[in-house]
């Protein structure tokens, strides 16, 4: 059990565990009292948890601000968001990360800041996080495979962190690297991908206010399978851009090599902006299967995929004049 400690909330802000549990029981009872409403989606006696249940024993986080850029679409249940993950370091099946990440230690943790910046070096995670107030952002998450979720992340804008390290004018890109620990991450013992996992952004993408460094979800610290203790969330790009368990952030002059692009350049571009007009070579990206709400429904999950995953208003200008079919 990871016992990484984030800044604790004032005790007056914390709901006592007993009251919290009692509320959950009440929700369950209410749910049972109206089974007719639940059957609608083909779920007679489902095991799906209520969308509001966090079921997390991880430390709660102090959230200073809520709601910026947040969607009010139905959220994915905590259970689904934490038991259906692509994190090949723990195995290629979606259920592997939750199963195989128990032996991973997200603390102590340090992050190296390198490259074209005035301040560089290796810093303990506590020092990296200290100056930042956490905010909650409810973002859509669109996987390149054609499914999507709605997740309340807790974190802070990557831009705020970047400013502290004062990148120079040579910093045109930000290259991020995941941790490599084959002993704790069984999937790394197989050469499925070129470990460690690497991702990157253009500096203007990295500085965009939507781009988030997340330390938690659903009000609590990130579980190992979701990229503890620090991960990237870029809501207008396909999920694989959201690199997990970050240990290195480098400012570079040239476009960094990125893992999925190295594995199959014709299928996974550097930009990887969500785009219903540009299909994956092997499957359509026009629509997606939304995993949200109670999490178990057989019909009516498919929705239209939005350009830039619905964040076009905020980010389309970053790409004006670019041929998005070529730079996919």
């Amino acid at each position, binding site marked *: 059990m990871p016992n990484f400690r984030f800044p604790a909330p004032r005790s007056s802000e914390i709901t006592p565990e007993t009251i919290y549990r009692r509320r959950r029981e009440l929700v369950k009872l209410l749910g049972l009292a109206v089974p007719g409403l639940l059957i609608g989606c083909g779920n007679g006696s489902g095991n799906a948890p209520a969308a509001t249940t966090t079921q997390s024993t991880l430390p709660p986080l102090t959230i200073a601000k809520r709601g910026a850029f947040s969607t009010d679409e139905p959220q994915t249940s905590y259970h689904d968001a934490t038991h*259906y993950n692509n994190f090949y370091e723990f195995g290629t099946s979606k259920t592997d990360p939750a199963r195989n990440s128990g032996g991973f230690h997200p603390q102590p943790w340090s992050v190296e800041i390198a490259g074209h910046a005035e301040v560089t070096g290796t810093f303990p995670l506590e020092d990296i996080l200290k100056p930042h107030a956490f905010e909650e952002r409810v973002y859509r998450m669109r996987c390149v495979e054609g499914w999507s979720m709605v997740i309340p992340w807790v974190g802070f804008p990557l831009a705020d962190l970047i400013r502290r390290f004062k990148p120079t004018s040579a910093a045109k890109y930000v290259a991020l690297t995941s941790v490599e620990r084959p002993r704790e991450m069984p999937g790394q013992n197989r050469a499925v991908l070129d470990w460690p996992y690497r991702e990157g952004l253009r500096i203007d993408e990295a500085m965009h206010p939507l781009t988030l460094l997340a330390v938690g979800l659903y009000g609590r610290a990130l579980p190992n399978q979701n990229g503890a203790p620090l991960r990237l969330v870029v809501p207008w790009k396909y999920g694989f851009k959201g690199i997990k368990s970050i240990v290195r952030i480098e400012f570079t002059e040239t476009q960094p090599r990125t893992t999925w692009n190295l594995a199959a350049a014709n299928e996974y571009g550097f930009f990887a902006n969500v785009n219903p007009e540009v299909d994956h070579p*092997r499957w359509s990206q026009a629509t997606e299967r939304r995993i949200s709400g109670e999490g178990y429904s057989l019909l009516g999950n498919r929705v239209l995929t939005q350009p830039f995953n619905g964040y076009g208003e905020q980010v389309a200008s970053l790409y004006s004049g670019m041929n998005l079919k070529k730079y996919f």
Partner: protein
Amino acid sequence: MPRRLDRIAASKPFVFALCLIPLAWLAWDAFNGTLGTDPVAQLEHRSGDWTLRLLLATLAITPLRHLTGWNALIRYRRMLGLFAFFYASVHLSLYLVVDLGGFWSQIFAEIAKKPYITVGFAAWLLMIPLAITSTKGMMRRLGRRWQQLHRLVYAIGLFGVLHFMWLVKSGNEIAVTEPLIYLAVLIVLLALRVPVWFRRFRGSTKAGQPRAATKPQPATSPR
């Protein structure tokens, strides 16, 4: 034939019931909500898995006969083949109705443009004539051509495996090994046929007429 207990005929209802178990299991999970986070993907994957397994089981009959000499095995072949077609139809229906349901315009684009769906759909289409001509009457009517037509099953097997291989996420290096296992089994089942084909070819060119072993089975070509 002396009037004895026909074990094959007696066992057929059991094999039939056995082939229905995966469907019952799937229906049970769907009803109970135990298909996991993305239940529609699970329905598709599991019905697809069983299609391939039954297809490979069908293709295993002939090599097993050659290896064991137990010719009666062929009497299970039609049932296994028809169940493969049945599961393929369930798989396709789930994709069209449950998964894509409502987004009809996408269906045609997907079938025409997406290679993995094209080969999967082609495999299902090719199974239709084989299912239609699987009756004894059709075997009799088609004679030698029946066997020629049913060689389509090799293409169907290949298309089915390609359909699985192409849908997994990674491109150049296939990240997921499961489709490769199906490919390996298919290759073994086809390779086991090669010596028999070779012998048959030599036999027919040397003697000018087929040898006993190459004669079509009475049930398949009585002409």
